[in-house]
């Protein structure tokens, strides 16, 4: 399967501080890659560069074979992002928000696209409600609909189930698994929920202090580090001084 995302020798410096130190990785078609690491490890900076919000100090990011720095608009058309730290305009209804983003992503058949997402994400009763008045689980589903509005090739998920109750969290995870299978998209998942990462990802990257300190299949990592689960591996690597990989 082809690589839909290629990150090559990526670095980001803020003055003398290196936030991301020469990292490289790929995400294949129909693959979910987990990006793990403690706060301040460089995950957000890495995602920021992949979304075109940050200019890398060095290195390249290719989305579907195109360099993002040289083809910004073209590559942004193929990607999308969801994070609990960003929201849809609160005063607009869910339908209005989806229409606006359909226009911004130049979606051709707006009605069909919204109907499809509404059905998949069970948004029927929420469509004409004001976004700011929804519960966090409902907002999350509305944001996910926005993140899929352009039928992205690559989806970036930052803590997609943070602050959700277990049932809605499970619904979102099942949805993502099915959607990935159906559309063969690539997903980068940054999460602190290790059960979620174990369930969804065949491959994970562990970041610390701007570097990738280990990577592999979650079960392989658990075996390699002699721990019971991914959370313990995460704690071991986060607390260790030098690693490993």
């Amino acid at each position, binding site marked *: 399967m082809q690589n839909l995302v290629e990150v090559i020798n990526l670095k980001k410096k803020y003055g003398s501080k290196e936030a991301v130190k020469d990292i490289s990785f790929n995400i294949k078609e129909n693959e979910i890659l987990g990006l793990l690491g403690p706060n301040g490890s460089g995950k957000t900076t890495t995602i920021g560069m992949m979304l075109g*919000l940050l200019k890398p100090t060095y290195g390249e990011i290719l989305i579907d074979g195109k360099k993002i720095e040289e083809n910004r*608009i073209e590559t942004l058309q193929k990607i999308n992002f969801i994070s609990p730290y960003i*929201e849809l305009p609160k005063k*607009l209804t869910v339908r209005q928000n989806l229409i606006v*983003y359909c*226009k*911004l992503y130049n979606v051709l058949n707006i009605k069909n696209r919204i109907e499809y997402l509404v059905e998949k994400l069970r948004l029927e009763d929420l469509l004409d409600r004001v976004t700011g008045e929804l519960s966090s689980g409902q907002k999350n589903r509305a944001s996910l609909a926005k993140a899929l509005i352009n039928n992205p090739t690559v989806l970036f998920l930052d803590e997609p189930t943070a602050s959700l109750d277990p049932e809605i969290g499970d619904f979102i995870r099942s949805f993502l698994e099915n959607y990935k299978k159906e559309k063969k998209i690539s997903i980068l998942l940054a999460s602190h929920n290790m059960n979620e990462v174990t369930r969804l990802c065949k491959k994970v990257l562990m970041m610390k202090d701007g570097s990738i300190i280990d990577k592999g299949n979650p079960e392989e990592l658990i075996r390699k580090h002699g721990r019971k689960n991914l959370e313990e591996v995460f704690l071991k690597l986060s607390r260790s001084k030098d690693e490993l990989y």
Partner: protein
Amino acid sequence: MSFIKIYGLFLRHFYLITRSFPRILDLIYWPSIQITLWGFISNFFASHSAYYNNAVGVILTCAILYDFLFRTSIGFNMLFLEEIWSRNFTNLFIAPIKIGEIITSLVITALIRALIGLIPAILLTSPLFGISILDLGIYLFFLFMSLYIFGITLGILVSAGLLRFGPSFENIAWSTMFLLAPFGCIYYPVEILPEFFQKIAYLLPLVYIFEEARSILIDHTVNYKNIMNAFYLNGVYLILAISLFYYSFGQARKKGTLINIGE
């Protein structure tokens, strides 16, 4: 440029305005209060000042023109700040929209916002004070056009600052117009200013616009040079502002402000 994307961004703000009656009221309320206040001041000066004796509507007309400039500039900034306040900033900047499309959309939306506020205020002046801004004739269009360009130029400059420095630049957004107002010679001739201030004033298109409004209303003469100077300076400042916006966007991507603003 994609018209659909420009329309999409316009639609985001159109929905916002039309969904909220208090927002519409807020847009109309301040210009109407401002114009009413200046209408009474204008009436007072007209009956107590030799300078304004033959032109009752001069102050009021200038107040309307200034308010249009103020609303356009603040309107542009508000649209930009709205994205920050609603935490929608990241969504906007990861969408495949060109900077030019964002600016174009905000420019159009700012004009509509300004007109929503100003048209009722202009309509008030006739029954309340017996004054019509249309007395400026066809030249009114040029003056409005010039003010509109300068208003959005200021809006783009402040938005560039917001992009580069983040929400901490917000206070500047509110104070820009107040800083420039004394040099704009809105309610008085430029000669009133001390000589050094006059030099600064002549660097702004405002002084030419308001001098021209007074020239038409008081002396009934049109000085095309004023109109041309205003457009010439507007062109220079607009190009500078757009260039600065692009530069700030590049700097924000380097420094990480786009991520910090968004969260």
